[in-house]
């Protein structure tokens, strides 16, 4: 029995689109097998077929040499296939123990036998070195711990094939390291792991073999140890990717954006979401705010851009106090905002491309006359952006934005925001969910802004992005700035300590 999973010649068609085209995927017993590909390469679709959510048009699946038909997740579960989803599925007001046994409760005459379950859970957690507190509530534990709960849940139901769907996206470097250890431990115990990711560092560290998909096609399976990151990324993208971002030396100009003692109170609790934050972004500088999600970076940006009211403090744009200005005034004064959630804030999904292109400028004389929109001018402008920023869509300027791919939606926002020729660009996770090609493109655009002497405030959760793109890093933890760091002089591990709140720069000692 060489392979635990054999998916042979899988083809899956949605409408007229081949999501998977003759893909073969084989996992050996006791290995970590990485599944690598850009967004839309078909990774999720392939795993959805394995998990019984979709049925393939062509191809066959063998589990432990037995041909099987997986019609729904229950079948998958019976075949001992378990999946940790990217977004955890946990009940927040349940304890860890209750969450783990949910769906597989052992009962005696309708009454839960929690003691047996507790014993089994504790045994499992010791065996696989998954530290948990069975009586803590899900809402109180860290994301890393929640993920361990999810893993235990799979183990509790005796899964032997574990699928991890981009498990590291939400973790700190320390937590990622721990997860890697756990995965190695699981494999040692005879489990097989499918590790879906597009982060080459992690694959390099933990995986034994790696299957690469590109646009629904099977590109190849390689041995991770003997293959370089560059080779793998070339397989994934289909061309060479430049990992080193070229940057000119920092030209320090005047402070374009200054934030002074900014405080934003939480609506629900007494805690301040943003607590007395001060910093300045200078011309020719990319200042990055790093931190784990939920530490006040979103609120900070909403406060600066005017989307939520601020309780105390000042925001200055090129020395001018704009704290109380309207969103539109700020935008006209030279502030651009690439929002965190492009569907919620950045775009009107049911509008077409050209109407989204003028979302903040439609009232300017070049696009309207006496209250009537000059559609010709709008169309011309949209065409210009499409050409200049290489935005691809089914029907060019008439495409409904909802039908565009995530990368091109983001490109449209970036195009719109940068074309305003702003003094300061506030970009919040501008590459979230984007593939390598689009990420590279957006980084280049941000750096071009900087090279023109403009200021960029980048908020990011991706450590690679933080380290590569920024000129200076501020770390935010629980609404406070805890570190002012130079990316050239700091390691990722050290940055992680700041982000987790276990280290502070002297200047920010409280």
């Amino acid at each position, binding site marked *: 029995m060489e392979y635990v999973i054999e998916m042979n010649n899988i083809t899956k068609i949605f409408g007229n689109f081949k999501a998977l085209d003759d893909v073969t995927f084989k996992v050996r017993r006791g290995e970590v097998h990485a599944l690598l590909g850009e*967004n839309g390469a078909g990774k999720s679709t392939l795993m959805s077929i394995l998990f019984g*959510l979709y049925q393939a048009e062509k191809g066959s699946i063998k589990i432990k040499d037995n041909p099987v038909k997986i019609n729904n*997740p*229950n079948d998958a579960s019976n075949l001992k296939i378990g*999946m940790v989803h990217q977004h955890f599925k946990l009940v927040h007001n349940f304890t860890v123990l209750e969450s783990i046994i949910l769906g597989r409760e052992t009962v005696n005459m309708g009454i839960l036998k929690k003691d047996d379950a507790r014993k089994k859970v504790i045994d499992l957690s010791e065996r696989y070195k998954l530290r948990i507190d069975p009586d803590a509530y899900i809402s109180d534990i860290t994301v890393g711990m929640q993920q361990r709960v999810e893993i235990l849940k799979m183990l509790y139901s005796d899964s032997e094939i574990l699928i991890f769907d981009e498990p590291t996206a939400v973790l700190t470097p320390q937590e990622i390291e721990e997860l890697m250890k756990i995965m190695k431990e699981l494999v040692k115990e005879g489990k097989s792991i499918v590790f879906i990711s597009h982060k080459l560092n992690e694959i390099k560290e933990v995986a034994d073999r790696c299957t690469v998909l590109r646009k629904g096609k099977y590109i190849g399976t390689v041995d991770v140890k003997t293959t370089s990151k560059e080779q793998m990324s070339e397989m994934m993208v289909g061309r060479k990717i430049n990992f080193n971002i070229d940057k000119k030396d920092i030209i320090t100009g005047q402070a374009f954006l200054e934030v002074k003692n900014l405080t934003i109170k939480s609506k629900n609790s007494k805690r301040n979401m943003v607590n007395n934050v001060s910093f300045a972004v200078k011309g020719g500088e990319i200042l990055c705010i790093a931190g784990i999600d939920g530490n006040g970076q979103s609120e900070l940006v909403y406060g600066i851009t005017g989307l939520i009211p601020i309780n105390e403090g000042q925001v200055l744009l090129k020395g001018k106090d704009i704290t109380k200005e309207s969103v539109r005034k700020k935008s006209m004064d030279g502030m651009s905002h690439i929002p965190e959630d492009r569907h919620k804030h950045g775009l009107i999904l049911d509008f077409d491309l050209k109407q989204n292109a003028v979302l903040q400028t439609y009232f300017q004389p070049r696009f309207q006359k006496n209250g009537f929109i000059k559609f010709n001018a709008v169309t011309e402008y949209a065409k210009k952006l499409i050409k200049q920023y290489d935005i691809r869509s089914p029907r060019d300027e008439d495409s409904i934005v909802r039908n565009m791919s995530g990368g091109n939606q983001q490109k449209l926002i970036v195009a719109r925001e940068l074309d305003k020729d702003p003094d300061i660009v506030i970009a919040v996770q501008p590459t979230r969910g984007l593939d390598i090609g689009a990420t590279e493109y957006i980084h280049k655009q941000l750096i071009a802004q900087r090279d023109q002497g403009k200021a960029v405030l980048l908020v990011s959760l991706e450590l690679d992005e933080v380290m590569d793109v920024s000129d200076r890093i501020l770390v935010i933890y629980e609404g406070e700035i805890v570190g002012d760091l130079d990316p050239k002089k700091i390691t990722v591990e050290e940055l992680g300590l700041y982000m987790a709140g276990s280290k502070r720069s002297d200047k920010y000692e409280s």
Partner: protein
Amino acid sequence: MRAKLLQYEGFTSFLSSLMAIAAGLLVGLIILLVSNSEDAFPAFVMILKGGFEDGSRGMAQVLYFAIPIIMTGLSVGFAFKTGLFNIGASGQFTLGAFVAIYIGIKWTFVPEQIHWLVALLGAMVAGAFWGSGPGILKAFFNVNEVITSIMMNYIGMYLVNMSIVKTVYDSLKNQTKPVLKSAILPKAGMDKLFNTSNVSIGIFIVIIAVIVIYIILQKTTFGYELKACGSNKEASRYAGINEKRSIILSMVIAGALSGLGGGLLYLSGSGKYIHVLDVLAPEGFSGISVALLGMSHPIGIFLSGLFIAHLEVGGFNIQLYNFVPEVIDMIISVIIYCGAFALLFKQIISRLISKPVDDTDKKNIDGSVPIMYSGADNTFVEDEAEDKTEQGEDKK
């Protein structure tokens, strides 16, 4: 090519509406067959003929029925385009009707030539005022406009009943007094054309309203702002659009449209009076049907209003065969019900004729970006995956 595609999209919308109508009529036929199989077919033909049954008088009757429901339909549809569900059309309509009648009777100081115009304007202002309430509550306190506008319907209805009794009451017939001749809409020869007194320039005012609303929504920055707020409030705020102002103005305009509808109906000089009864004006609710069937598009609303009025005239006529006119209400309900499946119909239709369109699409796919498999699709896959797993777990 693009123009063709646009036509094609409108075409599928139109086809799916037709499918809904066919389904509704089929159900109507079944009801007729069940209640009296002998006369069912002649009655059904009569429904189909509707306003054509009675020559020009029938047509006039269709227009008469259509005018108020097109206006309330525009009101509901306009609010809907801007993300608001205006169930308060009934109250706004009633307020408009009352103010029109009040001005039509009491404001004798207005020059006779423009008396009707002043009365209509009064109706619009009254409707706008009544619509503004839910708008203000929604904008400043985030109170759901559905609830407030329903309540405003009742408040409006009782307020109007009370005011009628105090001001323009005909206690003998328990209704409003007739308006002065100068306040009745000019006929402009329409009565001679249709050979009946039911018609007036009202239909032209409706057409003007349809065009104005169409232009506001499609051509102006104001309409752009309203639609942006309706489609995505957060993104509008991000874009610096004053979403509070947009919500209030949207409700004010919707209210004015309904109010104008009330004015047009009660000033048409057809012997229609407001009865002092504790019943909400049905025109307001018909407006919802009209807007749904017309897919909230001004021109669609105009056509669907005419169509529903046509059916109503037919429903009136089938009483000849001893059928009750309520059959029509059932047919209309089924049509609306199927209209809710319009998306489904749309998908079926576009799948049936999809191939040529995809060829045009392929031209734009230059091989590097798989467009069909967009980011949105990706999340959809994930979401569905989540749902299914949850179901799977539940079953166990």
